[in-house]
C-alpha cells in the first residue's frame, strides 16, 4: 500500500517514520503476520485442548489405540534416527573426503527427498518394495514384510529425512582442520583413535542437530507413512494417521490428546535445537 506512496514529509524523517518502510511499521507487520498465522492457531488448539481441564484431555489420550500410535511413532522415529546418524555421517564423509564416479549425482540428489511430495515418496516405495513387485515378493518369500508393516514405516521416514544429517554434517567436515588429524597420526594415533578423539568431537553437535531435525520431521510425518504403513490400529497406525482418522470420523475431541503430544514433542525438539546451536556457536567463538 504505502510502499510506493510519495512522501509529503521531508525525506530523511519520512524514510524513518513516514511510511510503511519505517522500522516500527515493518516490525508490526512482521510480528502481526507471524502471530496471526503461527502463534494464534497454536494458541487456539492449546486452549481447546486444555480448556476443559486436564481430565478430558487425558481421557482422549488414554485410549489404547491413541497411546499405541504415539509409542509406535516414537519407536519408529528412534529407529530411523539410529540408521540416519550412521549412514548420514558416512555419506557426508564420503562426499567430502573421497572422489568417485557418480559423486555429483549423489550430492545433488541428496536434496531430492525435500522436493518430492510425500505421497509420491510413499507410492515409489510401494511400487518397488510392495507385494506386487518382484522385489517385494522376493522379500516376503524370505519372511521379510516391508510394505504395510513396520520396516516400511522406517524406510519411508529414512527417505523423507535423508538430507538432514548429511547436510548438517557436510559443512563441518569441510571446515575441519586436517592438520589436527595429521598431527594425531604423526603422534602415533591409529585411524580409529583419530576418528574417535579428533573427528567425532568436532562433528558431534552437527550430527545431533541433524538427528534432532530428522526426529522432529519423523514424528509428524504423514503423507509417505499413510501410504506404506497399512494403518492398522494397534499395529501399524502412527500418531499423525491416528489424528487424521479421528478428524475424518468427525471426532476431533479424540484427536486432541495425540495432537497436543505431537505439538509438545515438536516444541521440545526446537528448544533442544536452539541449545545445540548455542553450543556450536560458543565453540566457534
Amino acid at each position, binding site marked *: 500500500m504505502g510502499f510506493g506512496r510519495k512522501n509529503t514529509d521531508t525525506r530523511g524523517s519520512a524514510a524513518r517514520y513516514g511510511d510503511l518502510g519505517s522500522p516500527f511499521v515493518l516490525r508490526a507487520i512482521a510480528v502481526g*503476520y507471524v502471530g496471526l498465522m503461527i502463534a494464534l492457531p497454536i494458541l*487456539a488448539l492449546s486452549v481447546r485442548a486444555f480448556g476443559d481441564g486436564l481430565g478430558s484431555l487425558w481421557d482422549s489420550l488414554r485410549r489404547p489405540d491413541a497411546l499405541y500410535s504415539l509409542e509406535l511413532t516414537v519407536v519408529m522415529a528412534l529407529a530411523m534416527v539410529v540408521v540416519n546418524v550412521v549412514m548420514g555421517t558416512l555419506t557426508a564423509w564420503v562426499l567430502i573426503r573421497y572422489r568417485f564416479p557418480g559423486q555429483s549425482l549423489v550430492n545433488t540428489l541428496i536434496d531430492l527427498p525435500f522436493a518430492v511430495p510425500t505421497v509420491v515418496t510413499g507410492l515409489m516405495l510401494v511400487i518397488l518394495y510392495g507385494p506386487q513387485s518382484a522385489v517385494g515378493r522376493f522379500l516376503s518369500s524370505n519372511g521379510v514384510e516391508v510394505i504395510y508393516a513396520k520396516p516400511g514405516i522406517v524406510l519411508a521416514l529414512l527417505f523423507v529425512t535423508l538430507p538432514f544429517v548429511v547436510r548438517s554434517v557436510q559443512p563441518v567436515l569441510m571446515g575441519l582442520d586436517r592438520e589436527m588429524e595429521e598431527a594425531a597420526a604423526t603422534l602415533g594415533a591409529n585411524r580409529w583413535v583419530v576418528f574417535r578423539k579428533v573427528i567425532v568431537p568436532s562433528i558431534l553437535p552437527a550430527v545431533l542437530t541433524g538427528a534432532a531435525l530428522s526426529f522432529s520431521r519423523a514424528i509428524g510425518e*504423514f503423507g509417505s507413512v499413510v501410504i506404506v504403513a497399512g494403518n492398522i490400529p494397534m499395529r501399524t497406525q502412527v500418531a499423525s494417521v491416528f489424528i487424521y482418522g479421528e478428524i475424518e470420523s468427525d471426532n476431533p475431541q479424540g484427536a486432541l490428546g495425540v495432537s497436543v503430544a505431537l505439538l509438545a514433542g515438536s516444541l521440545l525438539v526446537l528448544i533442544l535445537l536452539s541449545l545445540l546451536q548455542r553450543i556450536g556457536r560458543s565453540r566457534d567463538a
Partner: protein
Amino acid sequence: MRENQVSDGGSAAANPKPPAGRSRMRRALGPENLMIGAVVVWFSVLVLFPLGAMVRGVFDSGFADSIRSLGSPVALHAFWLTLGITVVAVIINTFFGVIVALVLARQRFVGKLLFNGVLDLPFALSPVVAGFMFIVLFGPNGWLGRWFEAGGIRIIFALPGMVLATIFITLPFVTREVVPVLQEAGTEQEDAARTLGADGWQTFRRITVPSIRWGLGYGVCLTASRALGEFGAVLIVSGSVIGKTQTATSYIHQEFTDFHYAGAFAASLVLAVASFLMLMTMEVIRRRVTARME
C-alpha cells in the same frame, strides 16, 4: 583404466599408498572403497531404485492409459487447484517473508528470540496437527471461524482454508533464506543510498532487492516445491471433495487407494518432475552463489 580408478580412490585419503606388492583385490576392498560402496548402495536402495521403479511403473501400466487419466476432468481440476494455491501461497509468503527477514536481520527488539523460535514451528510441526489447528481456529465454533461464518464466508472445507494451511506450512522458507544474505550484505550501501537522497522504497528496490535476489529465488523455489507437494495439512482442512477441493496430492492418494494405479503413477510422475526441475533451479542458484563467493 580400472586400476586407475581404484588407486585414485585410495590416494584421495591422507594415508600412504599400500606397497606395490599387495594385490589389487586387497586395495579394492580397502576402507575407502568399502565406505563409498556402502553409501552408493544405500543411496540406490533408498532413492534411485524407487525413483526408477516409479518411472517404469508409468510405462508398465500403459502409457496411453496414464495420459488419458491425466487428461480426465478430475485430474485436471486437481492440478489447476494445486497450481493456484501454490501461486497464492508463494506471493503472500514472499511479500511477508521479506518483511519478516528485514525485521529479523536489521532490528533488535524485546522478544526477538521468541519471535525467531515461533517462526520455525511450521518446520517442526506435523502437517496433520497444523491442519487440525486451522480447523479449531476457523471451524464454525472457532475464535475466527464464527466471525466468518456470520459473514457467510466458509474457510474450512473450502479454498481459503487450504490456502491458509499451505501458507502456514511454507511460511519460514523465504525468511530463512533471505536473513543470512541480508546479514552478510550489511547496511552500508543502504545507508549510502539514503544519504544520497533515496527514499525508503527506492533504497529497497535499488539496493536491497538486488543484493538478496538469489537468496530470495532459492526461498521462492523451496516455498513453491513444498506447496506443490503439501498433502497432510491441506487434506485435513479441505475434506478432499472430488472435483472441488481435491488437490494433486490428494488425487494421487485417492487413485492409489482406489487401485487406479495408472492415474496415481502418472500424476506422481508429473509432480516428481516438477519438484525435480525446482531442485535443479535451486542447484543452479547455489552454484552461482558459490561461484560468486570464490
